[in-house]
């Protein structure tokens, strides 16, 4: 059997069908099993805030120690008319989330995320 780490790539369509809590539970349950999760589109700021809060509640001394997470810098969405009508809106971008004790970010630039993953 191949030894390694499972990587789950979750499409934006699938994420859009889920509520905030469903997204957070999906991510955390996956990451707590030792998997790496890649979201095609990242979480909204309010969802990120809840993800931090719920992650903290899941940490245990000999088990889960939290998450490592990286995303490209946000960029503004919509053209001039969109900004004029709806104000400033940022676009959530590809996001990598994994267990803090298995995923280590090596390098992050505006167009490159380089990470190192170890198996449990």
């Amino acid at each position, binding site marked *: 059997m191949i030894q390694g780490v499972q990587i789950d790539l979750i499409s934006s369509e699938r994420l859009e069908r889920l509520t905030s809590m469903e997204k957070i539970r999906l991510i955390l349950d996956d990451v707590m099993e030792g998997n790496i999760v890649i979201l095609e589109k990242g979480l909204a700021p*309010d969802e990120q*805030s*809840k993800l*931090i*809060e719920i992650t*903290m509640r899941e*940490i245990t001394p000999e088990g889960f120690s939290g998450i490592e997470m990286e995303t490209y810098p946000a960029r503004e969405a919509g053209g001039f008319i969109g900004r004029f009508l709806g104000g400033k809106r940022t676009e959530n971008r590809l996001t990598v989330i994994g267990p*803090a004790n298995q995923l280590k970010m090596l390098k992050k630039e505006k167009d490159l995320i380089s990470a190192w993953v170890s198996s449990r």
Partner: protein
Amino acid sequence: MAFLVRTKRKISRFLKALFRKQSCRIGIYGPPNAGKTTLANRIVRDWTGDAVGPVSEVPHETRRVRRKENITITGNDGNTITIDIVDTPGVTTKIDYNDFMEYGMDKEEAVTRAREATEGVAEAMHWLREDIDGVIYMLDSTQDPFMQVNIMMVGIIESRRLPVIIVANKIDLPDASPQRIKSAFPQHPVVPISSLEGSNVEELYEKMTNYFG
């Protein structure tokens, strides 16, 4: 012309005073060991002679949100603001008790500290969503400001439309680069200070009275 400018300023101050909330809650947020409690202590000492809490080199010394009420700050320009200072635990996405054992703690003490720290971070996030009117986001200017937790936190604060002042702390250290912080967050005012030595805190007070008032 000068008369018109003076009159406009007086009307503006009058309207601000009229519609201003009695007191607004300013949260000091940032990653662990950025100097949040050192700044909270300095602000509270400078304006009331009191203190908020203990500081330490060991991360997560502050593990409960602490609020100090009714602090009246006056800037060099004469503007005044009355605020509650809310000192919060350092925000992070990971806490491992083994990291505390490297500071000489035994396992039991380290596990307790880690558990309290996780509760503290969750509490700080809850405050940010429910009870904070403005934010001082504190960064250690010797560290990389592009850390994901900083990008996330500033994004969360922006999405809640809260006014934010970014403080580039520890400018007394040789590796400090407040310019790096300014380039990371060009959309917000950045004030370089040393909360330990008190250098440039007057600029922060002036910015607070203008920005949170």
